[in-house]
């Protein structure tokens, strides 16, 4: 490696870039200038750096497309005019739009399907006749008073079989009686009232909770 002055050519060439911009430190400039005074190859290198800077500086500034400034102002204007609420709204629209159509379609199809199905069931007597009540977790009224099973009656009170509808409250007490079949006479009515109103029943339950209910009781005259 050739050594001239107190720096080598490689070091001198590293300093040239800053030197041509007058950004080298004073001592670096001094060393470089001393080196250049005696080194012809490095002088040519310096010339080429200056040439490079010269042709780069002579590049004509690129003019943008004449619509670019206008387009930029329009985009800026749109961005600036959008309030906070508008931005959230547009964000929601952008997020929801892709799912809105499928979701609405699914809802409409579901409603239509159930409408058709419901229509077929609701207006088809054959299907309706197959319906049975669903009694899940329900218990009917039960008789706890054994005297009701063999209530004494005179021949004038209970001549023919009698069906009675009794309303039983949550405490197992009868609060309404209606004779639904059999001969209804004052004597029969008095007899059934005296028999049922004081009676105690186990109330009906739904999901384990006592509820008001209606029960049907049948009486027949049994001669002993």
């Amino acid at each position: 490696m050739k050594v001239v002055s107190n720096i080598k050519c490689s070091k001198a060439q590293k300093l040239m870039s800053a030197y041509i911009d007058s950004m080298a430190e004073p001592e670096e400039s001094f060393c470089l200038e001393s080196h250049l005074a005696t080194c012809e190859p490095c002088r040519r290198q310096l010339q080429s750096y200056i040439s490079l800077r010269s042709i780069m500086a002579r590049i004509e500034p690129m003019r943008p497309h004449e619509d670019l400034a206008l387009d930029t102002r329009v985009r800026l204007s749109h961005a600036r005019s959008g309030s906070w609420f508008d931005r959230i709204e547009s964000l929601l629209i952008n997020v929801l739009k892709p799912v809105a159509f499928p979701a609405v379609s699914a809802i409409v199809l579901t409603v239509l399907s159930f409408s058709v199905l419901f229509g077929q069931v609701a207006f088809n007597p054959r299907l309706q006749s197959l319906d049975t009540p669903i009694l899940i977790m329900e218990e009917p009224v039960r008789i706890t008073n054994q005297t009701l099973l063999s209530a004494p009656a005179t021949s004038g009170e209970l001549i023919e079989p009698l069906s009675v509808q009794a309303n039983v409250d949550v405490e197992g007490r009868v609060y309404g009686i209606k004779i639904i079949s059999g001969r209804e006479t004052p004597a029969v009515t008095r007899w059934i009232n005296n028999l049922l109103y004081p009676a105690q029943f186990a109330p009906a339950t739904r999901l384990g909770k006592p509820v008001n209910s209606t029960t049907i009781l049948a009486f027949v005259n049994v001669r002993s």
Partner: protein
Amino acid sequence: MRRELAYYDLERGVATLLDGQDAAFVRRLQANEDAAYDELVRTYNASIYHVAYRMLGNSAEASDAVQDIFLKVFRNIASFRGDASLKTWVFRIGISEILNRLRWWKRRHRMSTVSMDDDHGGNGSGICIRDSSPSPQQALESKEQEMAIQQALGRLSGDHRSIVVLRDIEGFSYTEISDVLGISVGTVKSRLARARADMKKSLIRYLSIQRV
């Protein structure tokens, strides 16, 4: 003489050095004033486009970058603290956006190409060396030289390319480059030296015919 006035940032309660005109202008931008944004675009549109074009080598890409850069300036102007000049801050955003685009293209292995037919933004002028009365032969040589410069820039890394463009084409000072790129002046010197050495190798043919 540079006028430097204390710009008192009310939100942060700190006084920072910012050119008086810049400070007033920044307040207008932060107040979302229409005229201020028009002035911002008018002031920086051409220079940012030039930098973007030189770094990206494609007019359409450079135009997209310019629009995105101004949108980022708008979105971030509220956080501008005035610890650099507005020009430096705008170019910092610009170079960052351009480097991001370069990295994006690099990840997709895009080859940097320069077309002799590129009309460079539709103005039909192409790249040209300043010349008061070019003959057809000189114009052709100038265009060829410009193409060589653009190709040489394309061979540099993004960091080196940005330094060469800012210094040798846009004429930024070392301090301004340091502020824009967020690196020390010493790093600017060393990177510029390496970038120029690479450019010199690529353009040696054209440098030999220069009369200095």
